[in-house]
């Protein structure tokens, strides 16, 4: 079976994110003061094959935990989509 995993990795709320702060400053400079909050995260799409939904789930979870996110300061969430065939 083919799957597409859509993964979002974000900082934990207690972590100061200088990147998001910088964007907010830039928006102010662009006179876009009506933007009240900015979150800046990472987004991944992985295509993978697995024997079952459960197997794909376990694997993506491991990839997030060990590679894509640093759980000391980041959280992650993902969705799995089953695909009829490999996209290109």
């Amino acid at each position, binding site marked *: 079976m083919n799957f597409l995993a859509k993964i979002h990795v974000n900082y934990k709320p207690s972590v100061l994110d*200088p*990147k998001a702060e*910088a*964007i907010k*400053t*830039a928006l102010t*400079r*662009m006179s876009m003061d009506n933007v009240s909050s900015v979150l*800046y995260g990472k987004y991944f799409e992985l295509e993978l094959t697995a024997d079952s939904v459960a197997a794909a789930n376990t694997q993506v979870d491991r990839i997030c935990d060990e590679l894509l996110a640093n759980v000391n300061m980041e959280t992650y969430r993902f969705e799995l989509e089953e695909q009829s065939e490999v996209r290109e």
Partner: protein
Amino acid sequence: MRAAVLSFPGSNCDRDLLWALDTMSGIDSELVPASAEHLDNYDLVCVPGGFSYGDYLRSGAIARFSPVMSSLREHADRGGLVLGICNGFQILCEAGLLPGALQWNRNLNFICEPEPLRVVNTDSAFSNVYSQDQEIVLPIAHGEGNYYAAPDTLAKIEANGQVIFRYVDNPNGSLNDIAGLTNAAGNVLGMMPHPERAVEQLLGGTDGLGVFASLKAQCEEATTNAAR
């Protein structure tokens, strides 16, 4: 000849560049903050290296919204000379004053080392004292110096002879080994290597002096022509 060195919050090569222009090349220069609203009275405006506004989104992405940028654009449109080095190059690309963009180095690492370059076009305000295909060594120090432009843009750049410096051993994955290039009009140059770090033998070499000497020669010629 008068030169301005722009100083954005987070610029960190501004003073080095000022020293290279003023003390080492005898070009009357001063620092101008990014909050400035005018750039009249300058023949040359330099955009220095560093991490403007932290460079957190993409290098140079936020600096382009600084107040001084509209005056810089006017200066460039008037045909004034603009030299962007490292972060300055990134800012000029982000601001659309130069084509293309600078992406993460191919190996994803910041690289600081002396880099051999070839001067591939000496018919430019920035390189006229070098000899054609001369090999020079300038330090590089960047994480995002991997030059990218869409294929049609790249073809145009090459056809116009806008590439001035190419890497001899491409360190970062730049397309066509591009280390420095000008806009179509030839008055705006962006380069990743740091000529201002190669102006004293004590610190390892003087190959960068040629960039400043070229600019000086260009301005003097312009003045002479105007006087005629």
